[in-house]
């Protein structure tokens, strides 16, 4: 989750800092850390006005505002009544056990995989987990053509799980650049919690 540290700033600076962060990139979730209750309420109001759901929290001497909302596409549609699916998005888990799509031509398969991952965002808020196992973990390391796309997903709040056993097997543990290293129990639990699992 993106964190904005606005401690030590007087009104309206924390609101402006939050506003600037949202203009820079679309965030489906963020945490703003403040040092006084007035700034906390102001930032909460600002995020409310931008369509976020907000949660206030006190952490030691700090005041947090945690904001969450659906992805950009959902926001664009927010003018009209939201479809039911958007109100209660289903949880889709996509599991990639390979770095190429389908069998036949490997070059084509790699291109298709890249295209597939880039198009995944069209699933909107229903995309809940993206899991990489076996050869799939090679998509999460430095030099991967989709690394930036995956990092953008993560920034927007999507949880990406990468199989630790697989990374270890290919000796790629230190080269992983995106996602959370995970184990089979997490993957199985995610499968159980998901409304839909799509396996590639």
């Amino acid at each position, binding site marked *: 989750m993106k964190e904005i540290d606005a401690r030590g700033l007087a009104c309206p600076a924390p609101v402006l800092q939050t506003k600037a962060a949202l203009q820079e990139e679309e965030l489906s979730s963020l945490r703003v850390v403040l040092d006084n209750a007035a700034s906390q309420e102001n930032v909460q*109001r600002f995020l*409310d*006005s931008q369509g976020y759901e907000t949660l206030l929290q006190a952490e030691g001497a700090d005041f947090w505002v945690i904001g969450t909302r659906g992805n950009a596409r959902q926001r664009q549609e927010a003018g009209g009544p939201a479809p039911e699916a958007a109100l209660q998005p289903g949880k889709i888990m996509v599991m990639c056990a390979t770095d190429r799509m389908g069998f036949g031509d490997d070059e084509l398969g790699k291109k298709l995989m890249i295209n597939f991952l880039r198009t995944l965002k069209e699933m909107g808020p229903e995309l809940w987990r993206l899991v990489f196992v076996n050869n799939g973990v090679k998509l999460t390391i430095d030099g991967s053509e989709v690394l930036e796309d995956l990092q953008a997903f993560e920034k927007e709040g999507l949880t990406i799980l990468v199989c630790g056993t697989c990374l270890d097997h290919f000796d790629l543990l230190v080269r992983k650049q995106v996602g959370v290293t995970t184990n089979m129990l997490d993957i199985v639990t995610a499968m159980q919690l998901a409304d839909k699992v799509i396996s590639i």
Partner: protein
Amino acid sequence: MVFPTDGNVLVGLDRADDAGVYKVSDELALIQTVDFFTPIVDDPYWFGQIAAANALSDVYAMGGIPKTAMNLVAFPVKDMDLSVLRAVIQGGIDKLAEAETVLIGGHSIEDKELKYGLSVTGFVHPARVLTKQNLQPGDGLVLTKPLGTGIVNTAIKAGMASADLTESVTRLMAALNRIAAETMARFDVHACTDVTGFGLLGHLAEMVSGSGRSVRVFAERIPVIEDALTFAAMGLIPAGAYKNREFRAGMIEVGDGMARERQDMLFDPQTSGGLLICMPGAQAEDLVAALKDAGLGDAAKVGEIVDGPAEKIRVA
């Protein structure tokens, strides 16, 4: 703390009023007040005007007529061009001229930050001094300027206010309370204050404290700068507004379902705000009409004094 006093002090430090009042004779009392602050607008000439209007306001709020003034200046002479200081003081002088008040002295010091204000002396008949006390059941409350300058100033700092809005709010803050004071002098006024840093409800709370009365405030009738409502919804609210709300929380009851932004207006710290006038309810609408005739189009009756439960402010 014990303050030295004598029999001629009509309003002193023991009562937190807008200005001190000292009786000179049975016909004449002096009103004395001082106020200065750091710039609230970028333009030095307008800052001078606003500072002067703000300092003069306390005399008007006491029912008096300002007569003389002295400058108080703190200026970073090494870091700032003297033309800035000249513009500030010219703004003050022009505003004093509008108030038919003479500048007869002053004092300046070197400081890291520009500060400007004035000490103002006015005249009042000892029997016609208006304080924050003397609220009567059935009285009406009249406010002469719209609220929201603190929030708009925050939006200006944030670079989110339009040039038109910036100018209109600057003019509003620089507007003297002279016309309001002269108009209310034709009526049978019970109490008066001006709305400044504590916000409408903060200053109203001062009037209600110790009165044994309560107040009903009609939130929907309170004049506000419309754009301030939008900025409040975006969180462009000065920290002072939250302090004001917290400080008086125990005295204030807000009705269910009132928009949060409208509540914010009631606590928004004002710079050179309007007069808050307490007078017999039957005359309040007449005063509002007279104020509007005199060019104060935003004037409105915003509340009324009721008997008990003692010293509460109910906003509905």
